[in-house]
Structures are given as structure tokens and as C-alpha cells.
């Protein structure tokens, strides 16, 4: 209502300004005014003001005009302010305009110019008032702010009202004072007419301003109603007096608005009806539309809808509109209302005797009208389209049965337009059909008969309408002549292809779609046709048997490649590149996938998911290669770099509605990737706070992150991220420890929820993996102090966990991790730090033992493993004999080969630490003789020699054998050196050469063996020989 009032005000004032021109300007004045007008038309407001400044001092400027300059400046500034969005600037312009107006009125201008200045002042206040009123309607303002703004608006609008009232009184006096001049009656009559017209306009403005003041009061409120009542009276009086004036008609509209504001529905409808009854001329159409919009508000509150009134009013109005008018948003809203009215009418008759032929006919006619109108609205893009489609869907009428009026088609253009309309209908019907189909597909075999019937019912009108369109399209083709517009003909062909596509006649759609690319290159239809052909090939591919889809795939690829080549970067290539990228990723053809992803226009939303998909493929390839061949890490980094590029590019563009399993998984991959790069901060950011962050998705319970596997993987990654963060962000180690603990807890919960039986085993395997990774992470650190800080953080983390937890598996994990880290530190010579970790490990294991392992299947294994880990920790502390005792105790019960190896190693480490030849001897020959029930005592620690015999020539034990062989030879070297027994050294050398000849790779330990051989040969004072070279052919 406010906007309407404002536009009317501006319209009236503009008219008034033109009419209020002073009598007969001179030629010089005309030139100045023309120039000013041209400047304003182009929006050069500043230049216009500059020009006026120049004129003020110019001797060439006519005197009469010079006097008016402040007034003209005010007009320019008001006009310029209207185009400003910035409130401050707007206020500034209007403030300046007001100053000019005041200056002007001080110059005691002629009564006519004074009246004009007052009217402009009223306009100024009105404009300012409207701005504040608009601001007050903003949802961002608090109620208090709104009240302030409304108050300000009211004050300005009241000022406008006062100014207009002064103007009215002045004009009234002027009219009364016009004296008849018998000699110049025509001039006097013209003056009277002009003054009277202006008087009418000022009165209209008075009513409009009063109406605007009503809007400054809260809705609903007594004051508002009161003010509307005041404005209503003014409008009514104007309407009564000036029916024959255009402004009078506006008053009727104003009266209708104010009556509605007052709450008087009868009066509102009465005034609306008076407007509807106006002559059917184009000038009244916008006014009738406004009246209809007011009436609509009242009709829509009625239940049932007063269909008779609505139809009676709107049908003739809408039928009289041009196609362009029918597509305007307010008219579309009114058409929706009309459609509803027809349907309500049908429902009304459906309640009566439906067996009666006349009644049935009425129902049928009403339904057809309802559908016809709704379908017309559904053809026009915009918010009403969806409403119309929903209506059609809700009504479930057989819309295909609704035939438009029979029109004889005799020209290409007629056929084209008719077919286009039918195809738009078909598109709407297809949307409905596809929605039902989606439901049926989702239900699968469980789809009810009712649902299947619904599908059939949706398909029938779709097919009928499309077939009808095809007939008309064929007719259009037959009308083709040399004069037929090429683009329009191509469009007809495209519609044919689309019709076939809708009918699932994909071969036909392909033939015409591809024909367009060949016969009509450069047209929009060529691109659309190609896209349609592509979709059809895809449909054929999907429905073809897996062993008979070569034709479809080959053609799909050929056409997609052709499109990408012809229209690079254009929207038409989007689907082509998308489809092929998907195929290529599916087939693992990463080079092709990359090519296609890069062919997807950057602006395409579809590109994002493909980038993420391909980024993930690169990432998985990298992980696989690293697993298969970790030694070539440098070679694989290119894959990781590509993965990073694509994942980051995708993540940068992704929108919330694109979150699905692919993007969720991709964000997790990117987190892993950052972790792999050692960028723990970035990894943590990606994990927690990125636009799409895996932990955040889980927290939101997003469907894309609901799979147990995703939750488990995310939690695993999270622990790794926090552990890495502990290493890199040591200042905040406590924070990361807390986060890691939280994630471990939820990880465990999710595993229990998933499968309580297997939860513990799964958790254990996760712990083992994490222990391994933390060791790897630490080994990556080359700097001793960094290693210390990292191990300190881990120690804090694990210590905090083990001190808090009561869970045996967690305790075992913390102990194992600490042990693994301790071993690593020991190997790098950081013995003091290693000891700290091993001691904490022993604490964890002892705590686990205290809690007990229960009686489950894993109890014995856990117990044994705990004893073993305690022995390892004891060894790490440097208590060799105690450790050896512990290993022996375990081995007395079960002679596991891994523990045998640990025990032999314990002797060996003792030898290293104490330079003890005996310890090396025990390492080789075994020790710890123990009593055995019903059997003679025997060594429970076998030593390297026996272990070598036990594992030799066993393919599955090959890696173990070479490790044993290495340690055995090492011990021989050390023992031989200490005892100065050359034979020990030569035997060690020969063993190495013998097995190197047999297996030059030496189970991946070739480098270590080479070093050992060199040491032996140096001790023997022999030249160092190279181990046999592996045969690359094997």
C-alpha cells in the first residue's frame, strides 16, 4: 500500500510540475530548460546542479530563470535522491533541497511559483517520510527502532500534509480571484481549467498523504484505523466530486484501500466494484488490477471462496489481457485465484446431485476451466508456477483431457506457438509424473496398487499431451518454407526431440538431437539438441543389458567429446563432461576423468562434486602406491598434490545443498591428506570448522554422515589429527589431549552401538593402528628436541587416558603405544626419554592386569600380550635380566615365535649394553632352562640359531627368517669380536653370502645385510664385497 501511495504521489507531482510551468517562457529560457531536461534524462544530476551554479553568475542567463534557480536545484536534488540507496546520502540531498526551497520562498516569488515551491516541499517531506516508513518495515530493526522510524516518518508526512493544505488554500483563493475578461475569455477559461486541475491533484495528494500517515502506526492499532478513516473520507469526497477525472478514479482506489484499512469489507468491495465497472480501456487496466488485488485479500479470507464473485470479476478481466500482461506477477496471482474459484465451483456442484446431466456438465466445465487457467500459470516461470503445479497435482484432475479451444492451424508460426504451449504443459505434467515415479521407485516391490494407479494416471495425460504436441510439431515442419526463420525451425526440431525424449523414445530423440548439431550449427537448439541426444544415449545405456551396452557407451563418449570440442566452457558441455567424468572415474581411467572434470565449466555446480570425486581417486591411488611401494614416496607425491588440488577446489566451491556421501567422504580425505602433509592445523580446521567439516556433519546428524563406517573413520582421523596437533602445536597440547579423549570415547560408543559383540575387537585393531601411526609420526621427526616434545605430548595424552580409563582395551592400547614409542626412541639413542615412556607403559599394563581380563575368548590372549608388553617395557628401561625372566615365564607357558624373538633380542640388547659375549651366546644358543612337568628341564628361550632352523624354507615365514638370520649373524660378529674368534666371523659372512645368493632381495633387508657384511669383512680385514645384485627379471 505504501509503495502504491508513493508512486501515485510521484506521478501526480510530476504532472503538476509540468503543468505549473510559468506562463510563456522566453526562447532563451526554453533553451536552458531543454538543456537541463536532457541532463536530467541522462541522470547527470551533479552536472545539472553545476550548470545551474554557472547560470547564477552568467550574464547570459535570462533574469526570470535566474530567480527560479534555487527551485530548479531543489527539483534536481529530489530527483537525484530518489535514485540513491544510501540513506545518509539520500538525507543529505533532500536536506540540501529543503534549504534551496526555503531560500527560494524568501525571495517572495510570484503566487504561482510560491505554490509550486510549496508543492515541491510537500513532495520532499513525503519522500523522506516514505524512506523512514520503509526502514521501519525491515525485520532487522528492533521494535523500539521501528517505533522511532515510524515516528520520524509520521512527522515528515504530517509536514507534507501541512504544505499541501497551504497549497490547496492558495489555489482555492487563486481560483476565486480569477476575474472574467470579456475580451479574452478563452485565456481566462484556460487559466481556470489549469488551476482547477491542479486543485484536484492537490486534493488527491492530501488524501494520499493522509493514507501514508496511517501506515506509520502499528498494524493493528486504533490510531491506524482512525487515520485510515480520515484518509477514507478525503478519498470518498474526491471520488464523489471528481469521478470524471483520472485522479478521481485513483481516489476510488484509495477509498478501497482505506476502507480495507478501516476493516470495512463491504465498503472495500463496493469501491472495487466501482472500479471494475469502469470502461474496458487500457488506461484502467492497472487500476483494475490494483482493485482486484485489494478484493483478493478479502476473498481469500472467506471459506469457501466466493467463487461466483471471483469468477464474475476476474474472468472477463483476465480474458481481456494481452499475453504479456497475463505473465505479470500480480496478474498471475489473480489467475491462481481464478483457477481456485473454478475448482471451488466444481466442488460446490460435486456436493449436489452428480447424476444430473446438467450438474455433471457444470462440474466438468468448471474443472476444465480450473485446469486451463492453472496450466496457463504453470507455463510462466516464477513463484506462481510452483503454486499452479501443486494445485494441478492436488486436484488430480485428468488435465490431459482438457482440450484447449479448437484453433485451426494454418501457418508455421501458429503451429510453433501451439506446440510450444503444449510442450510447456507436457513439461509440467512430466514434473508431476516424475515425482510419483520417484515414490514408486523408492517403494520398489512394496509400491501399493494405489501408487501404481497414480503413476498410470500421471503418465496418461503426459503421453497424450506430448503426442498431441508431436502432431502439431510435424505440422509445423510441413509448413516450412524458405522464409521460415532458421532459429525458430531449429527450435521446432528441438521440441520434437524433447517430445520423443519425454515419451522415452530415445532413438528418435537422438536422431533429431544430433541432426540439429549438424544441420543447424550455431543455434541454441543445436546445443540443446546435443544435450538431449546425450541424455538419451545415457538412458539407453542405463536400460541396456550390461553385456550389450557398447553401442550406447561409444556413442555417448563420441557425442560428449564432440560437444566438449565444439562448445568448450559452455553450459551445453556441462552435462557431457559431467557424465563422462563420472564414467571415467567409475572405470578408474583417471587421466580421462581429469580431462573431463576440467572441461566442466567452472561456474557449473556439478563440477564441485566431480572435483571431489576425482580428488578422492587421486588420494586413494596415492595411498595404495604408498602401501605397495613406500620407498618411492617421492614419486607418489604428484598424486597427492593432484588430490589436494581437486579436493581443495571442490571444497572451496561447495554449497550446503551439495553435501552428500561423496562430499562428506571427500572432506574426510582432505583432512587425511593434510595430516599426511604434516599440516595438523589445516587438518584440524578441515575436520572441525571447514564449510563442510566431517566432525561437524556428524554433530549435525547430517544424513550424508550417518553411516557407521563414516563415523568410525572420522573419529579415527580425528584422533590422528589431534595426535598430530599435539606434536605441532605444543603450546595447546592440553586442548588436543582433551579433544582426542573425547573422540576416542565417541568412537567406542559408535562401535558398541554398531555391534556390541565386535566392538572390543574393532577398538583393539584401531588402537594397534594408532600406536603404529604415532610411532611413524615420531620417526618422521628428525630433530631430537622435536621428538622429545612430541613424545612428551603423547605421554601426557596417553597418561591422561590411562589414568582416567577403566577400560582394559584402552589401557592395553596406551601401554602398547608408549612401548612402541619407547622402542623407537631407544633405537635412536634417546634412552632417557625412552625409559620415561616404558615406565608409563608398565603402569598402564599393571593397571590392566589389576582390572583383570575376564573369562572371554580374548582373556588368555590379552593376558599373554600384557605380560609380553611388560617384558618389552622392562627391557626398554634397561632391566635386561628381569625382562629375560619375564619372557621366559611367558615362554614356559606358550612358545610363541614372536615372543621367542623378543626374548632372543633381549639377550642381544643385554650384550650390546654390557658388551657381554655371554649374552650374545645366549641370544644365539638360547637360555633359561626351566623344569617341565613329566619332562626333563629345557631351555625355554630358544635363541636365534634354533629359530632360524624353525623358519628356514618356509615361504610364509620368509620375512621372519631373514630378520632372525640378521640378528644371528650380528650376534656371531659381536661374539667373535669379543672372543676374537675369526671362525664366528667367517661363518657369519658365509651365511650372509649364501642366503643373499639364494634371495638377493633378502626380504627387503638387503641394505641392512650389506652394512652388516661390510662390518664383518672389515673385522676380518677383508675387502668389502657387494651382495649379489637382484635379477630385475624375477
Amino acid at each position, binding site marked *: 500500500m505504501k509503495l502504491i501511495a508513493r508512486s501515485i504521489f510521484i506521478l501526480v507531482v510530476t504532472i503538476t510540475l509540468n503543468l505549473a510551468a510559468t506562463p510563456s517562457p522566453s526562447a532563451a529560457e526554453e533553451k536552458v530548460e531543454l538543456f537541463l531536461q536532457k541532463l536530467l534524462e541522462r541522470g547527470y544530476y551533479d552536472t545539472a546542479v553545476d550548470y545551474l551554479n554557472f547560470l547564477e553568475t552568467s550574464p547570459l542567463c535570462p533574469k526570470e530563470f535566474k530567480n527560479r534557480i534555487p527551485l530548479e536545484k531543489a527539483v534536481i536534488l529530489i530527483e537525484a535522491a530518489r535514485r540513491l540507496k544510501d540513506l545518509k546520502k539520500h538525507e543529505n540531498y533532500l536536506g540540501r533541497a529543503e534549504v534551496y526551497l526555503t531560500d527560494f520562498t524568501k525571495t517572495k516569488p510570484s503566487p504561482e511559483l510560491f505554490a509550486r515551491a510549496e508543492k515541491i516541499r510537500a513532495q520532499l517531506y513525503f519522500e523522506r517520510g516514505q524512506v523512514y516508513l520503509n526502514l521501519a518495515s525491515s525485520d532487522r530493526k528492533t521494535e523500539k527502532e521501528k517505533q522511532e522510524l515510524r515516528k520520524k516518518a509520521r512527522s515528515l508526512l504530517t509536514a507534507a500534509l501541512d504544505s499541501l493544505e497551504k497549497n490547496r488554500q492558495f489555489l482555492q483563493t487563486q481560483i476565486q480571484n480569477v476575474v472574467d475578461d470579456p475580451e479574452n475569455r478563452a485565456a481566462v477559461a484556460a487559466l481556470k481549467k489549469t488551476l482547477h486541475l491542479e486543485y484536484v491533484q492537490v486534493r488527491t495528494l492530501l488524501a494520499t498523504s493522509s493514507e501514508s500517515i496511517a501506515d506509520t502506526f502499528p498494524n493493528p492499532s486504533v490510531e491506524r484505523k482512525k487515520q485510515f478513516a480520515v484518509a477514507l473520507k478525503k478519498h470518498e469526497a474526491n471520488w464523489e466530486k471528481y469521478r470524471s477525472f483520472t485522479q478521481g478514479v485513483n481516489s476510488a482506489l484509495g477509498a478501497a484501500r482505506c476502507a480495507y484499512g478501516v476493516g470495512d469489507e463491504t465498503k472495500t468491495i463496493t469501491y472495487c466494484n466501482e472500479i471494475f465497472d469502469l470502461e474496458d480501456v487500457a488506461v484502467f487496466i492497472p487500476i483494475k488490477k490494483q482493485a482486484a488485488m485489494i478484493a483478493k485479500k478479502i476473498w481469500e479470507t472467506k471459506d469457501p471462496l466466493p467463487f461466483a464473485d471471483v469468477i464474475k470479476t476476474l474472468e472477463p478481466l483476465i480474458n481481456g489481457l494481452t499475453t504479456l500482461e497475463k505473465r505479470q506477477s500480480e496478474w498471475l496471482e489473480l489467475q491462481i485465484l481464478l483457477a481456485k474459484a473454478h475448482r471451488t465451483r466444481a466442488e460446490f456442484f460435486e456436493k449436489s446431485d452428480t447424476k444430473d446431466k446438467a450438474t455433471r456438465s457444470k462440474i466438468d466445465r468448471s474443472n476444465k476451466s480450473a485446469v486451463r487457467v492453472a496450466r496457463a500459470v504453470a507455463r510462466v516461470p516464477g513463484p506462481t508456477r510452483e503454486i499452479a503445479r501443486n494445485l494441478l497435482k492436488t486436484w488430480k484432475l485428468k488435465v490431459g483431457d482438457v482440450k484447449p479451444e479448437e484453433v485451426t492451424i494454418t501457418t508455421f508460426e501458429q503451429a510453433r506457438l501451439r506446440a510450444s504451449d503444449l510442450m510447456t504443459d507436457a513439461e509440467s505434467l512430466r514434473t508431476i509424473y516424475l515425482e510419483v515415479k520417484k515414490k514408486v521407485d523408492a517403494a520398489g516391490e512394496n509400491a501399493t496398487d494405489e501408487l501404481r494407479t497414480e503413476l498410470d494416471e500421471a503418465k496418461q495425460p503426459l503421453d497424450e499431451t506430448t503426442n498431441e504436441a508431436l502432431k502439431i510439431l510435424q505440422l509445423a515442419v510441413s509448413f516450412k518454407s524458405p522464409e521460415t526463420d532458421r532459429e525458430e525451425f531449429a527450435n521446432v526440431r528441438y521440441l*520434437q526431440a524433447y517430445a520423443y525424449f519425454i515419451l522415452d*523414445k530415445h*532413438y*528418435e530423440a*537422438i*536422431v*533429431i538431437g544430433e*541432426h540439429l548439431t*549438424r*544441420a543447424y550449427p550455431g543455434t541454441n537448439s543445436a546445443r540443446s539438441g546435443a544435450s538431449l541426444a546425450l541424455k538419451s544415449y545415457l538412458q539407453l545405456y542405463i536400460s541396456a543389458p550390461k553385456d550389450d551396452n557398447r*553401442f*550406447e557407451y561409444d556413442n555417448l563418449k563420441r557425442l560428449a567429446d564432440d560437444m566438449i570440442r565444439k562448445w568448450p566452457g559452455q553450459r551445453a558441455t556441462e552435462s557431457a563432461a559431467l557424465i563422462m567424468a563420472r564414467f571415467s572415474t567409475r572405470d578408474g581411467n583417471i587421466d580421462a576423468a581429469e580431462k573431463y572434470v576440467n572441461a566442466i565449466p567452472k561456474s557449473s555446480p556439478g563440477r564441485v562434486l566431480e572435483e571431489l570425486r576425482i580428488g578422492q581417486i587421486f588420494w586413494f591411488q596415492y595411498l595404495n602406491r604408498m602401501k605397495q611401494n613406500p620407498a618411492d614416496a617421492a614419486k607418489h607425491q604428484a598424486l597427492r598434490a593432484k588430490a589436494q588440488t581437486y579436493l581443495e577446489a571442490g571444497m572451496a566451491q561447495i554449497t550446503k545443498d551439495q553435501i552428500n556421501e561423496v562430499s562428506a567422504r571427500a572432506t574426510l580425505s582432505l583432512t587425511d591428506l593434510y595430516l599426511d602433509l604434516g599440516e595438523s592445523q589445516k587438518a584440524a580446521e578441515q575436520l572441525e570448522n571447514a564449510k563442510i567439516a566431517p566432525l561437524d556433519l556428524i554433530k549435525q546428524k547430517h544424513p550424508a554422515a550417518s553411516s557407521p563406517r563414516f563415523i568410525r573413520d572420522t573419529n579415527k582421523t580425528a584422533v590422528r589429527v589431534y595426535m598430530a596437533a599435539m606434536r605441532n602445536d605444543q603450546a595447546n597440547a592440553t586442548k588436543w589431549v582433551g579433544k582426542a579423549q573425547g573422540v576416542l570415547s565417541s568412537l567406542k560408543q559408535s562401535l558398541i552401538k554398531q555391534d556390541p559383540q565386535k566392538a572390543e575387537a574393532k577398538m583393539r585393531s584401531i588402537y594397534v593402528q594408532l600406536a603404529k601411526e604415532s610411532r611413524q609420526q615420531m620417526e618422521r621427526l628428525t630433530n631430537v628436541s622435536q621428538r622429545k616434545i612430541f613424545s612428551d605430548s603423547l605421554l601426557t595424552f596417553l597418561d591422561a587416558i590411562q589414568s582416567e580409563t577403566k577400560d582394559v582395551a584402552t589401557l592395553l592400547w596406551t601401554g602398547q603405544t608408549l612401548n612402541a614409542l619407547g622402542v623407537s626412541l631407544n633405537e635412536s639413542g634417546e634412552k632417557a626419554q625412552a625409559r620415561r615412556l616404558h615406565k608409563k607403559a608398565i603402569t598402564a599394563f599393571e593397571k590392566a592386569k589389576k582390572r583383570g581380563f575376564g573369562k572371554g575368548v580374548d582373556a588368555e590372549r590379552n593376558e599373554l600380550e600384557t605380560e609380553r608388553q611388560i617384558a618389552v617395557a622392562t627391557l626398554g628401561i634397561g632391566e635386561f635380566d628381569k625382562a629375560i625372566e619375564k619372557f621366559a615365564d611367558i615362554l614356559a607357558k606358550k612358545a610363541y615365535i614372536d615372543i621367542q624373538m623378543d626374548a632372543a633380542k633381549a639377550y642381544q640388547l643385554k650384550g650390546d649394553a654390557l658388551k657381554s659375549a655371554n649374552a650374545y651366546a645366549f641370544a644365539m644358543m638360547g637360555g633359561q632352562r626351566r623344569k617341565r612337568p613329566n619332562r626333563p628341564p629345557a631351555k625355554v628361550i630358544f635363541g636365534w640359531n634354533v629359530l632360524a632352523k624353525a623358519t628356514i624354507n618356509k615361504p610364509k615365514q620368509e620375512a621372519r627368517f631373514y630378520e632372525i638370520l640378521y640378528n644371528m649373524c650380528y650376534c656371531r660378529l659381536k661374539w667373535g669380536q669379543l672372543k676374537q674368534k675369526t671362525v664366528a666371523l667367517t661363518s657369519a659372512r658365509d651365511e650372509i653370502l649364501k642366503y643373499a645368493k639364494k634371495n638377493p632381495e633378502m626380504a627387503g633387508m638387503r641394505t641392512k645385510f650389506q652394512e652388516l657384511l661390510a662390518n664383518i669383512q672389515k673385522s676380518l680385514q677383508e675387502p668389502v664385497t657387494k651382495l649379489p645384485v637382484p635379477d630385475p627379471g624375477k
Partner: protein
Amino acid sequence: MKLKIAVSFLFATAFVAHAYSQTDQVDRTGGARPVRGQIIQESPTAVVVKLSNGNQTIDAKEIRRVNFGDGSNLQKKAISDFYAGNYNNCLDLLDRSEQSNDKTTNPFLKAELAFCRAMSMCREAMSGGNVSLDNAGQKIYEFTTNHSKSFHAIPASQMFAEVCIIKSGAFRDKTKRDEWLKRAKTALKPLLEAKNTWGERYLSANLLMGRIAAIENNNDQAIQYFTAAQDDSITGKAATQIKQIARCRTWQIKGQKGDANAIKELKKIINNESGDDKLFFSNAYNALGHCYLKAGDKKSALLQFLHTQLLYTGNPNTQSEALYYLTQLWNQTNHPDRAGQAQQALRNSYQNTYYGLRSVAAN
């Protein structure tokens, strides 16, 4: 239709002379000025017009149409409709003219009217109109025998050959089929001998002979005829079209013989051709369809024949050929409903085509 007389001797070269009354006008092709005078003689290769200052001989192939001074309004209108392609109207007017006892003693006009009737009947029959193919064939045969010296004798003979080829499709029995093909060959003989006088007809005759040979599975001979139909010495718009079609059909036969280049060459021909020549494109796509069929690529073959059905309509021969193969291909690609639709279209709209009759005969 009963044929007792071979047509090979029908084309005597001697002119037929006649007394004349009114002024005739001979409209010529290629923008040449019409010749006004009285037709006094005609032969399968020329017409002699008596002018005020002597006689003028006009080559038959240059004649677009003759406006006879003689004849009733109905007859004149019938002839006009014939040349405008309104065959049904032409037949209607001729019937009305006969009912009105419009008589003429002008033998040239008589021949013209007989020609218009016979040709209109053939055209109507071939395009699925309300005329039986047998009756149409009988009429055109009668024209070739009764008006063997008419300047329309050569076109009529070609039409008779086309009818015979179509008719051969009606028989599963090889002997009967061969009888009709033999008649067609006989009818085409004078055209094959008229290279210098009726160049385009000569090319068309070779095209038809190639088609006959293809029906007879005589591929080598088919290639010979199709090659002859591409004779460079004969030029003109129609000749170019015939030659292009012959090129396509040559590659079709080569493809059917196993030439691996055939598909590539046909695609090249299609891609190089711009414009919207429906007759050419429908022949080209059908030829390509045959090649894919031979290669065992049914889905690609189907697409080619669909081009003809959807985009290059208008010629009953190529349309029926496409529909005939589409019927088979839709079945072979598990679309029996579509096969049924194609067959129905073939039998309803193209019943008087070679493939229309063949489809009926096959069941």
C-alpha cells in the same frame, strides 16, 4: 495387370503428323522462351511446332509442359493440376471431362490426357492414394503401347518400370518376382539407350537397374549400374542428385559385400552434403543403415533408418524401405511395440511400394 506385348519396339522414331486448329504453347525448361504455334509432329525425342515462319523442333527433354489450344476447360484444368502435382484433382477433372463427353480429335492432346491420367494414377497409387497399383500399372502400360510415339514415351516407360519393380515386391515366389523385374528391365531398355538424348533419364534408368540387380542379389551388376548412374558427362541439378544417390547406393552394395570403408565413406558423403535434399539424405541414410546391418550393428542401423523416417520424409520408396527395416530392427532390439507401429505405418501409408508389398508378402 496383363502384359502381352513387350515394350521394346514401342519407340519408333518416325514423327506422327496431324492437322491442327488452335495455337499451342510449348513451355521449356531452363528459362527458355515458350514456343507458340501448332504442334504438328511428335516423337519420343522431339516435338515439331509449326510457326508462322516455318517449323521448330524442340527436344522432348526440354519440354516442361504443353498448353494445348484445343480442349475443354476441364481438360485444360486437369492438365494444369497434373503439372502442379495435384494428381487426385487431375483424375477427378478427367473423369468429369469424360462424363461431359468432352471429345477431341487432336491426337497430341489425346496423348497428353492419357499421359496425365496414367501418371496421376501411378503417383496416387505409389503415395498411398485411392488408386489401385494394378490399375495404375495397366494405364501406364496402355499409354506406352497406344502412344509409343508421344514425347512422353520415355518418362512413361520409366514409370512403368518403377511400377513393375514395386509389383515384384508382392511375390515370395522367385519366378513370379523375376517376371516383373524382367518387365521393368525391358521398359528401361530404351532409356538406357538414350544417353545422348535423355541424359537424366539415362542416369535414372541405371539407378533403377542397379536397384533391380540389388533385389536379385546380383551385387556386381548392381555396382556396374550404379557406377553408370554416376556418369560425369551428364550434368544438371537432377543429374547431380541422381549421381549422389548412386554413389551412396554403390557404397551400400560394397558395404554389403564386406568393404570395411563403406560406412566411413557414406558418413563422409553425408557430412559433406549441406542443405535439405530429402531424397538424397533418405537414400544416403538408408544406404548407411544397410551397411550397419551387414556389419551386425543393429542399433546403429536402426538410427540410420530412423533418420529417413523422422527427418527426410516425402519419398515413398525410401520411407517404405526405412520402415521395412525398422520393423525388423525394433523387433531385434526388443521393442516389439515399436516394430508393430513401424509395420502398421508401412502397410497403411506405403502399401503400394516395393517394401510395402514385400512386407505383406512376407506374412
